[in-house]
């Protein structure tokens, strides 16, 4: 941007004085030129005049003297000459000669002026064409010149006076007509530059149109400036409002994020616990009434979990943060599994379940299998929900096919209550339920179909519904998928019928990267239980180094680690040439938020396991990624993902969560658990000390890291209260709410000591009693 031009420091003259000076200068020049020009003209004029006088005198003389000249009457000529000279003061001399040059008469007077002021004229005296003599007259032009000059000076003086008057009038007129209005406009503009609030400028009526235009422009400028100031004020006000709104939105967003994190971490876990407890309760000896109550409670819990998951998904979609995965999968298996999951529900209602797969449908495809399954389950769930009797038919077919991609079409038809036309239009809108009756009879968030709609749109497809009340509904969707070959299929979806605990091949080499020694201990023993050997490293850097040196089959990688975190380590490993570069890497994380999986996959990881680690899921995962496994039939409870089957009864008031300990016993061995717990206590005490140190040093980074680590291991070993407190401190650190973090951290030492004391008691008692046994 150019700097604004500074006013010159040189002294400037006002325009009127410049004009006056210019006019005076012009006047002088004009006068000077006039004088020179006039002198020249006057000089010529004087000579002309003298010549004219001379000629006249000659004519007069000739008329008088011609007879005397012809007859050469010398006395008469002398008289005439004397008379003429006497009566003509400017005449110096007069001489008359006859045609032979003989002097006839001559008269002269003494010459008083210089020669250059004397003019001589010679005339031939002719009559009837014959020359009878000559007349010589000498004139003194001085008197004539003086006379003419006097006249000229008078005229010049008069002209000069007139010009001065004219100049004066011109300056006054210019001042009144131009300079004064210009001054006014300038003054107006100067005031305007200091303060935009000015009344409109009015110029006198005789002001020229140009200046009038200028004043109009100044007024327009003033108006524009006023409007601009007004706009600026409005903008500033709007900006302030926006800033407030922005801050509010940010804090709301933070609150939302925090809320979602809490939902994810905290709500789902107790629900899982409730479901687990109800599951356990169901297996005890109960009266029919009690069975019904337990069944209802479990159903409500599952519904609640679904609703929460829907809300979480939808929030993510709202924030445009939901990204699809692209992995290879078996389409047939996916649909078969989806139906199998819900077949039990259909059977309970006495509904017939039919799956019709188009034989022309490709077997393998690249897309997001989890999300497709989510859509399918949602639609089938609805069909089961709203169908009292009859059947549910799922048809999957190929809609369009080309070299790289194809369009899959799926319809879910039921023989349920159907939807009337009025409600069909907004069926895919958020929080829509067909009517209140339905909402009372059929629970749901009202988000299911909206989520389906958005997911289908993300998959470049469409979803629609046809329905006839009392006859049933058909929900159909189409999505775009990419062709792949079988060997590109990385996502092994196991058909429901085949679901079982999969034990990986015993000769596979596993590397565990985990900094927490307690977790190291738990995982090592879980794997030992399955007959697998594992090498352990304490951070990402060591993991990268180990993989370079030894041919591992799979890596279990913690995310938060000192020196180098799991994501960076994965990226480093992926730089290695094959086979090390292609090594399956499974994330082990306490980050349970939806979307973390995408983050890990993007970093180059292949799959993830949530902490606390479920033994069966871990083994299934290892088996899946190593493709070397044996299958064992398993309890159906273990088929579900850890997130939906966490039986831990978490309660922040409980220092020790027995459910976690039971799970630990189940995952490892009753004999080894006390050792694990003591090992954990020892490590956790060190962490607790490090936390105290971080508090003393106000080192919030260390505080965040250590509370995260302590929280994770505390959760894994049943120190629920300690886990909750550690998480709170970590959260406060992340939010930069340092005051709050310190306040919370001060209570940590006491909670930790009590937690360790109580847990040590459990360890000392051992876990061999029947109370700790779980039905296999």
């Amino acid at each position: 941007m150019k700097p604004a031009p500074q006013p010159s420091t040189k002294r400037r003259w006002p325009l009127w004085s410049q004009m006056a000076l210019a006019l005076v200068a012009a006047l002088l020049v004009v006068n000077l030129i006039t004088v020179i020009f006039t002198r020249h003209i006057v000089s010529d004029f004087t000579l002309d005049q003298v010549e004219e006088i001379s000629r006249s005198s000659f004519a007069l003389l000739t008329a008088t003297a011609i007879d005397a000249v012809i007859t050469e009457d010398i006395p008469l000529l002398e008289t005439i000459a004397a008379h003429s000279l006497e009566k003509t003061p400017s005449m110096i001399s007069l001489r008359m000669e006859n045609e032979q040059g003989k002097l006839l008469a001559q008269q002269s007077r003494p010459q008083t002026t210089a020669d250059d002021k004397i003019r001589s004229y010679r005339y031939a005296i002719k009559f009837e064409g014959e020359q009878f003599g000559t007349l010589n007259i000498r004139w003194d032009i001085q008197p004539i010149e003086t006379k003419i000059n006097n006249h000229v000076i008078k005229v010049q003086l008069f002209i000069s006076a007139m010009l001065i008057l004219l100049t004066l009038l011109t300056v006054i007129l210019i001042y009144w007509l131009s300079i004064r209005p210009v001054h006014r406009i300038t003054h107006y503009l100067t005031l305007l530059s200091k303060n935009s609030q000015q009344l409109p400028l009015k110029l006198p009526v005789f002001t020229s149109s140009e200046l009038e235009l200028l004043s109009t422009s100044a007024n327009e400028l003033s108006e524009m400036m006023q409007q601009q100031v007004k706009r600026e004020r409005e903008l500033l006000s709007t900006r302030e409002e926006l800033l407030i709104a922005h801050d509010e939105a940010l804090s709301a967003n933070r609150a939302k994020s925090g809320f979602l994190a809490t939902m994810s971490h905290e709500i789902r876990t107790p629900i899982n616990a409730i479901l687990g407890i109800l599951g356990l309760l169901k297996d005890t000896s109960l009266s029919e009434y009690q069975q019904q109550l337990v069944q209802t409670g479990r159903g409500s819990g599952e519904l609640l979990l679904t609703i929460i998951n829907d809300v979480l998904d939808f929030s993510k979609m709202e924030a445009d943060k939901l990204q699809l995965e692209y992995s290879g999968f078996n389409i047939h298996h996916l649909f078969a599994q989806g139906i199998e999951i819900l077949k039990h529900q259909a059977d309970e209602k006495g509904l017939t379940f039919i799956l019709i797969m188009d034989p022309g449908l490709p077997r393998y495809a690249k897309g997001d299998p989890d999300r497709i399954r989510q859509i399918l389950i949602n639609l089938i769930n609805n069909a089961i929900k709203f169908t009292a009797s009859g059947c549910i038919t799922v048809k999957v077919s190929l809609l369009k096919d080309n070299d790289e991609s194809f369009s899959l079409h799926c319809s879910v038809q039921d023989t349920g209550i159907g939807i009337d036309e009025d409600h069909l239009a907004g069926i895919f809108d958020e929080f829509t339920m067909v009517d209140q009756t339905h909402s009372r009879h059929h629970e749901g968030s009202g988000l299911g179909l909206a989520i389906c709609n958005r997911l289908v749109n993300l998959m470049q497809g469409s979803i629609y519904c046809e329905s006839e009340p009392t006859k049933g509904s058909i929900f159909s969707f189409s999505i775009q998928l990419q062709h792949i070959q079988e060997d590109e299929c990385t996502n092994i979806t196991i058909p429901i019928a085949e679901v079982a605990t999969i034990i990986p091949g015993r000769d596979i080499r596993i590397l565990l990267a985990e900094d927490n020694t307690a977790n190291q201990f738990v995982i090592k023993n879980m794997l030992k239980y399955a007959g697998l050997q594992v090498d352990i490293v304490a951070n990402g850097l060591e993991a990268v180094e180990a993989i370079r040196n030894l041919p591992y089959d799979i890596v279990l990688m913690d995310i938060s680690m000192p020196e180098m975190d799991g994501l960076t380590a994965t990226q480093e490993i992926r730089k290695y040439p094959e086979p090390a570069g292609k090594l399956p890497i499974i994330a082990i994380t306490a980050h349970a938020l939806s979307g973390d999986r995408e983050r890990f996959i993007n970093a180059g990881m292949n799959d993830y396991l949530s902490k606390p680690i479920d033994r069966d899921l871990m083994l299934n995962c290892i088996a899946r990624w190593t493709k070397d496994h044996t299958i064992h039939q398993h309890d159906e409870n273990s088929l579900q993902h850890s997130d939906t089957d966490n039986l831990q009864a978490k309660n922040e008031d409980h220092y020790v969560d027995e459910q976690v300990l039971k799970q630990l016993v189940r995952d490892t061995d009753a004999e080894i658990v006390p050792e694990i717990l003591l090992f954990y206590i020892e490590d956790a005490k060190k962490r607790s000390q490090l936390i105290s140190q971080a508090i003393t040093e106000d080192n919030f980074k260390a505080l965040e890291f250590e509370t995260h680590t302590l929280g994770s291991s505390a959760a894994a070993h049943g120190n629920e209260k300690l886990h909750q407190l550690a998480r709170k401190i970590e959260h406060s650190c992340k939010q930069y709410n340092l005051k709050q973090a310190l306040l919370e951290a001060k209570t940590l030492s006491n909670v930790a000591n009590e937690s360790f004391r109580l847990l040590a008691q459990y360890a000392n008692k051992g876990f061999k009693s029947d109370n700790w046994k779980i039905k296999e």
Partner: protein
Amino acid sequence: MKTLLTITILLFSLTSITAQADVNLKFGVYTSDKPTTMVKMFRPILNILEQEMTNKIGEPVNITLHVAKSYDQGINDLVSGQVDFARMGPASYITSKEQNSELQLLAMESKKGKKVFYGIICVQDQSPINKLTQIKGHSFAFGDKRSTIGRYLSQYQLAQQGIYARDLSSYEYLGRHDRVGTAVGAGQFDAGALKESTFKKLKAKGVKIREISRFPNVTKPWIASSNLNKKLFSTLKESLLELTDVTALKVLKKQGFLSASDDDYNIIRKSMLSNATFF
């Protein structure tokens, strides 16, 4: 060589042109009228003569007019050869011829084809005088003392009738002819002598005068000076006699020129010679 010859011829030609311009003639008259009137009267004829003579002799001829302020000076100019030729009254011619016998007549003016014209002796309209003899005892106005009509012929006429100067109550020379007529008409003189043309002019103007007698006069001679060479004399004479230009002649109030001999002026000579008897 050729160039030199050309230059020589050119120079010679220039010299001859300069020589040709040398034919300058002076024509003399005396003031029988105002000098400017004299110039007006003679310049046209002189212009024609210049042209004619130039044609005849093949050389440029310039004629300047010399107006003498008196009869005597005019006669003197001719006699002394200061003018090459002159026009004067018959009396002046006689006087001049007496002084220089080598003066030659070139021609004489033609008055309607004749060599004579008339002088008039007039009286006032109401005058009782009806014939010359009745003039005795009355006053008389003459013209110039050198005038043929104004003096010599009129005094000769009176003497013929036996009237002499002493018989007149008074007489005076008034100079010009018009003054005579005017004076008579005004009653200042009982009678006067003037030439016919002036008499008619005055009558036409309303001057109350009446003719009582007329006498013949010879027209004016054009006389060459004794200095004029023969060639120029004959050319000039020839040109004069051939002169027919009406405009020029009209100014002179003549109809041309006729051949003249000295005998044509005998009557004038006679009247002049006997003039002394009048007194």
